[in-house]
């Protein structure tokens, strides 16, 4: 498959592995902030191709992992309402809330449907005019445009039974929070598709304030290895900067049409991130103009008090402060088939990656 196979070429990856081992001397910690990278790194066995002085850490780039338990609880409450259909990406369905999860509600008879695209959710709304259809909007800059498009279409076509419950977030405040906390991260593998949409200009503010070593990476093994190579080169030469490895899909400006749609439909608001707490202007809520589609404003529901699972240290794992193996629940109580925290539920969560792939 074009643009996939060439970037999975074994020879190129092995060459990059050799090159990295050649130039790498310092003990460094590299964090990837995108769940897609966490997945790819473990799926292809990247850690086994790196020298022992390079440690890879996963950061808060898995939108499921950083989602507030209250979002799940409220979604569960919505699913219990009469004449209500919940539409969601597959990623959310097994995430545990305070006392239930969407797949448990589905098993109990709630109408919860996994969709691949927001346009599918809109179709469901069109076909079920007598029901409220709520779409659970999670995701960063890559996925937010899909929700924006759905709202614009709903507005244009008067699909008034369609609602969005937004937990959309933006990445830079989270990266700044990590840097502010002084967590020892030498360099970042930057989120490729987030940057495709928002453009490398999204790091301008961060680079003004911090000495940021970041390489915007694609998702194939060749991309990730080349990005690690660029990072090592930057760090060995003490030359931190923003570099784009994923040049075939990323540039400085990004996708202006998508940015315009996001700005038209959403406005920034403070938001709560698991592990990081409240971050200013890190979330996106619907603008007043599109209020009629806002589930939070238009659909009343009683939500239980949030109950965080005891012993769960997902928050610290998300910041790279602790490893899954430091958690007393890891593998004993918390497993992929019986997840306690979000890091284990999500396919991109650090804990699930460790459980499934690590030796």
């Amino acid at each position, binding site marked *: *498959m074009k643009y996939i196979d060439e970037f999975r070429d074994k020879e190129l990856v092995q060459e990059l592995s050799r090159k990295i081992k050649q130039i790498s001397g310092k003990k460094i910690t590299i964090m990837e902030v995108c769940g897609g990278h966490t997945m790819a790194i473990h799926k292809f066995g990247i850690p086994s191709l790196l020298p022992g002085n390079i440690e890879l850490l996963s950061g808060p780039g898995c939108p499921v992992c950083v989602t507030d338990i209250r979002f799940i609880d409220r979604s569960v409450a919505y699913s219990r309402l009469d004449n209500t259909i919940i539409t969601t990406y597959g990623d959310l369905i097994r995430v545990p809330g305070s006392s239930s999860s969407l797949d448990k509600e*589905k098993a109990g008879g709630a109408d919860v449907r996994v969709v691949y695209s927001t346009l599918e959710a809109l179709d469901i709304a069109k076909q079920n005019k007598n029901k409220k259809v709520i779409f659970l909007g999670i*995701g960063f800059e890559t996925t937010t445009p899909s929700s924006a498009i759905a709202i614009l279409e709903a507005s244009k076509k008067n699909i008034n039974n369609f609602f969005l419950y937004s937990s959309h977030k933006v990445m830079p405040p989270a990266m700044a929070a990590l840097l502010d906390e002084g967590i020892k991260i030498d360099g970042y593998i930057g989120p490729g598709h987030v940057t495709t949409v928002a453009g490398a200009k999204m790091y301008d503010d961060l680079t003004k304030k911090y000495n940021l070593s970041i390489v915007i990476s694609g998702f194939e093994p060749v991309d990730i290895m080349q990005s690690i190579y660029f990072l090592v080169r930057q760090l060995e030469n003490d030359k931190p900067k923003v570099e784009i490895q994923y040049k075939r899909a990323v540039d400085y400006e990004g996708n202006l049409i998508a940015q315009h749609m996001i700005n038209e439909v959403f406005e920034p608001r403070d938001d709560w991130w698991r592990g990081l707490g409240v971050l200013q202007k890190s979330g996106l809520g619907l603008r007043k103009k599109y209020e009629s589609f806002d589930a939070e404003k238009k659909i009343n529901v009683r939500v239980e008090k949030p109950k965080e699972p005891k012993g769960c240290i997902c928050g610290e794992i998300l910041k790279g402060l602790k490893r899954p193996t430091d958690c007393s629940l890891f593998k004993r109580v918390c497993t992929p088939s019986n997840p306690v925290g979000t890091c284990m539920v999500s396919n991109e969560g650090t804990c699930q990656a460790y*459980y499934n792939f690590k*030796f």
Partner: protein
Amino acid sequence: MSKTILLGHGSGGKLTSDLIKKSFIEYFDNPVLNAMTDSAVININDKLLAFTTDSYVVDPVFFPGGDIGKLSVCGTINDLAVSGAEPVFLSAAFIIEEGFSIDDLETITQSMREEADKAGVRIVTGDTKVVNKGQCDKIFINTAGIGILERKFENISTGNDIQPGDKIIVNGYIGDHGIAVMGARENLKFEAEIVTDCASLNHLIKSVLDSGADIKFMRDITRGGLATIVSEITANRKFGITINESDLPVRESVRGMCEIFGYDPMFLANEGKVLMIVSAQSSHKALAIIKENKYGRDSAIIGEITPDNPGKAVLQSIVGGSRIIDKLTGEMLPRIC
């Protein structure tokens, strides 16, 4: 642990095996069952029989290349064949939803007869139940099968003779069935249609057994996929398994689907695939024989038993990195992340 049954409990991975241990074996508990082999091996007056059962609830009922009837015959025949037994008889029990088309029913039963004939097996007893509309999804079928097992093949289902150095063979492209059914369910279109690989493998397996090739173990690769099987085989054993990703036969179109939805082909369901562990010396002979059969043309040696990483199944990725292969957890769902 969940207090109610979840869809994930039926997917063939971890949740399923946990449920089986806790809610079934705990109560039924007997040495024949506890062996947990694809077929039960029973000794009657010193003659060995293999006995197995399976239920089929696939939706949609008709899919590219097959239907629920064909599936129900092949699946049970294969469970017997991979135990080293020669399948002879099947039973077929039906639970049918009120309103189901009789024409469709007869298409299904005809399909079952055709498949049974191909395999040289007869359906000799059965049952029919009808339930109110909405109480089952169109039609569910259970088949049970009996096969004759020669003593010399008795150990095949236990895998107790597996040794480091043994090779792992799969008889063709993996993932076709899972994607064909998913494609039909989601109404997806393909440039080249993906059809189920559903087939009775008893003749293919018999030809390998009769050749004298040293077969150590066989299992048919169904729900939960190849990954679930290799991780189950190694559990609590003194050997490990290494699978070479670049040797795995996967069709381009199936790969494309997996990329789109974030699936791993190693977890996809199959209905015409057997995993064989054979001695290194026999492996090329076994491979040649399998390739002569029409259901084995695209066979490949995909890995081997190793003394390293005991108790674990490891994947050598296409780029040379390595990582653990684990069982399927829950259901595979399309993801954005």
